[in-house]
């Protein structure tokens, strides 16, 4: 079977975001959750069960695309077994991740909780939210029809509008942000408190809100000298923490290396560290391959070439794509388990005329170019730092995170025993060896 080169090429575009909801793109999707530990989810569930009825706030993080959602959905199922009412939602559906403020998150939570309660026939009245909607309409100067069957006091319509239009978003924000305290109070007193009472009547243990995808909040530096995640989760952490129910937030991994890490623990994590889910393992601490991880990465590449085939069938067709299995393995290893990195290398190989099968030599050129390019940005001092990291396998402090991990000079690895270490981005490691 021949590869549809154009389709393959387009599937490898690193600026493309996979949309699971599209059937065609779902075929490219590989489930990596098998290669990672599951105790983390257990611990999250236990804390909720133990602390109930007191509210809890827990943090969960990991590399983008490492399967957090899958794990959180498992948590949801687990808690529902224990008779909790669980509201799980992907915040990226309600929010624009490049531009989020506290009131946006609070509104999204309010809306999701309200809608989920309606679904089990718990309806609540709220003067605050009714007024809020009226003022929104007045504010936006556009008539918004609201039907009587509206589940979320009309907030749903508003948040949808806000997500699509930065203009509307900013309008709402300049209105709502100065009053976040009132909003919080209303959510607690007019939504969560009465909800809990009604849930109890139905024999439920309590209310849990799981906010997924908040880790995608852009790590941009705000003008106040903090990054957006630091602003949201640390500076305004105490407000995120003051919801009167169980909450699990996903947060960006960066915060784990931030100087604000301690503050984060105190202000939002209730004194405990966030739980971290690791990225796709491709090698072990001693440098040998992690076979399971490697096998999944191979599938990730091949699925893009042969989306319709079964995993085994794909393996039989490797030589349609690569000159040898070794070349494919080399690509997977040198990616360090970083999916976008892998795609980027693959993409560079595919742009040539007579691209297929990809020859080892071509891959090596792509690897070298990628390394050279990265090394352009590295100063002499940083090379020194990088050498230290390569030796000690450790990274200390936010500065090192910022310059090394964030710029993808260094990668983070974990093994199944939960050990964590750092090493150079493989493309750099090779340049370093040469020099």
């Amino acid at each position, binding site marked *: 079977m021949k590869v549809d080169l154009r389709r393959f090429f387009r599937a490898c575009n690193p600026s493309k975001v996979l949309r699971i909801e599209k059937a065609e793109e779902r075929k490219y999707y590989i489930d990596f959750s098998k290669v990672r530990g599951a105790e983390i989810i257990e611990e999250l569930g236990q804390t909720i069960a133990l602390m109930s009825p007191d509210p809890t706030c827990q943090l969960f993080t990991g590399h983008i695309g490492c399967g957090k959602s899958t794990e959180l959905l498992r948590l949801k199922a687990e808690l529902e077994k224990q008779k909790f009412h669980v509201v799980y939602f992907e915040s990226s559906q309600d929010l624009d991740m490049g531009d989020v403020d506290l009131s946006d998150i609070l509104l999204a939570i309010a809306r999701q909780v309200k809608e989920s309660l309606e679904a089990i026939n718990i309806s609540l009245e709220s003067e605050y939210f009714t007024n809020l909607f009226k003022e929104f309409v*007045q504010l936006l100067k556009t008539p918004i029809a609201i039907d009587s069957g509206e589940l979320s006091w009309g907030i749903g319509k508003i948040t949808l509008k806000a997500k699509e239009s930065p203009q509307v978003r900013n309008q709402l924000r300049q209105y709502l942000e100065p009053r976040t305290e009132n909003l919080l109070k209303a959510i607690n007193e007019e939504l969560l408190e009465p909800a809990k009472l009604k849930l109890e009547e139905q024999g439920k243990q309590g209310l849990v809100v799981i906010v997924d995808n908040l880790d995608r909040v852009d790590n941009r530096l705000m003008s106040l000298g903090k990054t957006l995640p630091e602003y949201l989760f640390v500076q305004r952490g105490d407000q995120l923490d003051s919801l009167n129910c169980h909450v699990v937030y996903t947060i960006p991994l960066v915060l784990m290396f931030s100087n604000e890490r301690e503050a984060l623990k105190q202000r939002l994590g209730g004194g405990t560290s966030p739980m971290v889910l690791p990225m796709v393992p491709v090698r072990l601490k001693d440098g040998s391959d992690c076979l399971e991880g490697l096998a999944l990465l191979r599938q990730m590449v091949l699925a893009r070439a042969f989306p319709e085939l079964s995993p085994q069938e794909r393996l039989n067709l490797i030589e349609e794509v690569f000159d040898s299995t070794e070349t494919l393995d080399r690509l997977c290893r040198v990616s360090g388990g970083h999916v976008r990195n892998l795609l980027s290398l693959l993409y560079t190989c595919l742009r040539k*005329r007579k691209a297929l099968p990809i020859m080892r030599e071509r891959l090596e050129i792509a690897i070298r170019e990628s390394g050279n390019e990265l090394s352009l940005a590295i100063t002499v001092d940083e090379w020194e730092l990088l050498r230290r990291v390569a030796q000690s396998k450790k990274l200390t402090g936010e500065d090192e995170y910022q*310059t090394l991990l964030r710029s993808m000079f260094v990668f983070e690895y974990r093994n199944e025993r939960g050990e964590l270490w750092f090493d150079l981005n493989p493309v750099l490691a090779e340049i370093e060896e040469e020099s």
Partner: protein
Amino acid sequence: MSDGQIPQPRANGNEELLSDLARTVEMSEGEFTLLLARCNYSHLRECLVKQLREQYQLKFREIRLEPSVKTLYTTIQEALGEEKPLAVMVLGLESVEAIEQVLTSTNQVREEFPKNFPFPLVLWINDSLLSLLIRLVPDFRSWGMSFNFTLATDELIDFLRQKAEKVFAAVEAVDELVRTDAIFSPQERAEISSALKQLQNQGVELDPELEANLEFCLGRNDCASGQIDSALAHYQKSLDFWQQQEEDEPRKKHSLERQGIILFHVGKCYCYQAQHNQQENKDYWQKAEETFRECLEKFEQAGREDLAAKFIGKLGEVLRQQEAWLELEKLAQKSLKLHQENGSPNRLAQDYIFLAEIALHREQWRNARQWAKKATSIPTEPQHPQRGLYCLLLAQALRKLGSTQEAIDCMEKATEENQPEFNPRVYIRLLSELRSLYYEQKKYLEAFEVKQKQREIELKFRLRAFIGAGQLHALQKELAPVFAASGRQQDVNYLVNERIALPKYKLTVLYGPSGVGKSSLVNAGLVPVLQGKAMGDRNVLPITLRVYTNWVKELGKKLAEVPETREGTENLPNPFKKDSITIDSLDGIKAQLRANADNHLLTVLIFDQFEEFFFVCTKLEERREFYGFLLECLKGIEIQFVKVILSLREDYLHNLLEFEQFAAVQEFDSDLLKKDRRYYLGNFSPDAAQKVILELTQRAQFGLESDLIDALVKDLTTELKQVPPIELQVVGAQLQTENISALKEYRKKGPKEKLVERYLEEVILDCGSENQRAARSVLYLLTDENNTRPLKTKTELGKELAAEADQLDLVLEIFVKSGLVFRLSALPEDNYQLVHDYLVKFIRQQKGSEIIAELQQEKQQRILIQEKLNRFLIVAGLVLAGLASLAVVFALESRKQAKMARKQAKMAFVRQLAATSESIGSQEPSLYETSALLALESMKQSQKIKNWVSLEADRALRNSLILLPNSIARISHQGYVYAVAFSPDGKYLATGSGDNTARLIEVTTGKEIARISHQKDVYAVAFSPDGKYLATRSEDNTARLIEVTTG
């Protein structure tokens, strides 16, 4: 920057890459794909773009970014409009000024790219941009695939050779009097250094001539950035090469020309060093002279009289600096001849000026006037750096010849026509000459204004460190660095980034003591930073209001002004182009604010010196109208995207309670003035003051000995461990005026009080000798025996002073302008007040008794006159009795007003005490006691005021009392207390001491209920977990256990 001479780059390695790029673009059709085309050379880039279009027949839309763009996403969006291109190519990113901002904002909206740009996007970048992408926006970069286009080695060498020759050609061609530093654009400089780097990486050796010429370029680069030593080293290397070439007969002429040019640059370096090293400048001027002479020799040897004519002027300037008049005269004669044959009128003018200066020096005024006139009669372009000098010399000559008015006219014209930046030192000399002319003419106000302008320019051009009692105003961009060194940058950063930038805050109340620099912060810090700054998708438009007599009209006027078009905001939409509209109603203001919001502006309304509002708007309805307006801004429904900053003195903060109440009644917010809406701007800490002094003085190259700075800070620090910025500025300004830079001098001429006195004295002198007495009296009258600063109206001052209303006008005007005295708008008449309490005692000391005597004498005289008048009035009074009674009513009314003002001053004093108590109470525990004492004093003072209770004093006292430690019991031992421990239930306290005892105390009463005696020191005590037993450990080799309840 297109250069015809650069050979077309060959395709070689780039051919394949180009075809890859074309292929990728084709394959990605209809889908967003980020392609980073990396190329360091603009000529190569242009050539590649052309090839893509022509050879590969690639269809793409080309977008060239202006250096002023602020975002990438919207720029592309606007450029495209409805158009749906197959591909887009973006060029010019490397020349964007706010590149970091552009990149980060691009990253913020990166999700929008795939959503709205369904096509491949080719972004042209260079190496330094790539580094920036990797560091700043790794996420965005990781989306992209890059294509690295390079030049071959020989092309690189050609490129460099051509650039180096361009420099020499430009230097030779340029009119020397015009600045020559900017031959290369920043982009070209980057290209050159990347070419050098690439060649170095390839291990290519350049031929010596190219190397020597590049050394020259590097030298010029360093020179432009002020690295003179390094520049000299580069020039020397280049010079060495060309000196060797002199041996080679056919190249001799060329070599001599090159040497001349290089030597000229070396000489300029020495001039720079002479100007920047006050101590050793003689040596440097000497060196410069020698070098320029050598330079001229080389040109003459090469037979290039034309070049000699071009470069001879600099030697003249050096001779003038050295005041070598005889030498200069010789040179000027020679130069005159050269220029008559070769030169331009500009150069001739300069020769005349040399001759004029020589004549002035020799006191040959007529000659001087003649030469200077000759120079000024030559038309020159307005930017000519020496033009100011011509006028200055002419005016000096005219003055000496007694034509004062003509001299003044000449100077006035010169200061108007010239821009200070063309030659700041000359401009300052112009101003100082003009000031002394005005002063001589008894035009004191004009003289003072000129003096202030001079100060401002000195500040701007780093020739002055301190501003004295005035405030930084004028929102010129150039003053930003002065402000940065004023120790308030952090406050500005906080206000801009944590307040204005976050939607969370709509209202900020900025408050602090008087003289702490609030208005300076607003005008010189906040406004320039905010002006045109992009926040999210909005540009900020700051509007500052300072006058409240008719706030609607004032605010309307400010809003109607077209926002100053600044770089990068030209396309800022404003539907009301030119001030064609007038806004004079509240509705008009609201409409304009709404229009601003629609035009993507974030309007920041800054109400500076807001305390004035309460003086002016005395009627509640008036104030409520304003509150209603503010509240609408804060609500954000009808009026959106408006932020409000209220800046006022801390002793008027309580006035805002009325607004808070208003907001609460309107059910907006019951706690409008809560802590996170207020921002306190306090005095400096001693450490901060030290840093500020250091930065200000270093900036202005006014080096202070470090011991002097230490001593100064110590003197400036109050007992509350604070340094008032105003005092720092006043004392600092006087230090510079008197050129005191060593501790020894300071000790001799100080302490600070003496300096403040002399600072005052200088302002008094500025009022003119015949007004001195009046000036002194006015200052004195603005103080009182309690060492406070009473508010007085002009009428009141006039009464106490012996008449002469015009004198009073002048004196007050100068005082207000100098910043010594505040003018507070009030009805029916403005009040005047000294700017700061600490001035009071200086003024009262200063010849105080003499003035009092004089005043009393004057009063006596007035009484005599009054008596005469009275006698007359008795007669007239009979007739005018009816009218007189009316007058009495008016008089009583005005006295009542004066009394009110005095009461207000007393109230303000009480509030200030209370506020100080609160502010230091929040700082450090060592000041708690002081805080309480201050609060107590505030309470005491408030009781002296009739019919008034001060809530502030009450609150301050209550708050500070809490801070004081409250001791319940005191347990006395005869030795060290080594150990203390509470029982688990908290009821008992055990102590262990060096007096050989341990004691058990009942906590609530402090009563001792048991004493355990040892032979030696008791080091430790501990209760059992159940609290029943107490164990003690002693140095006497025993531990004892007792039952707590029984002892």
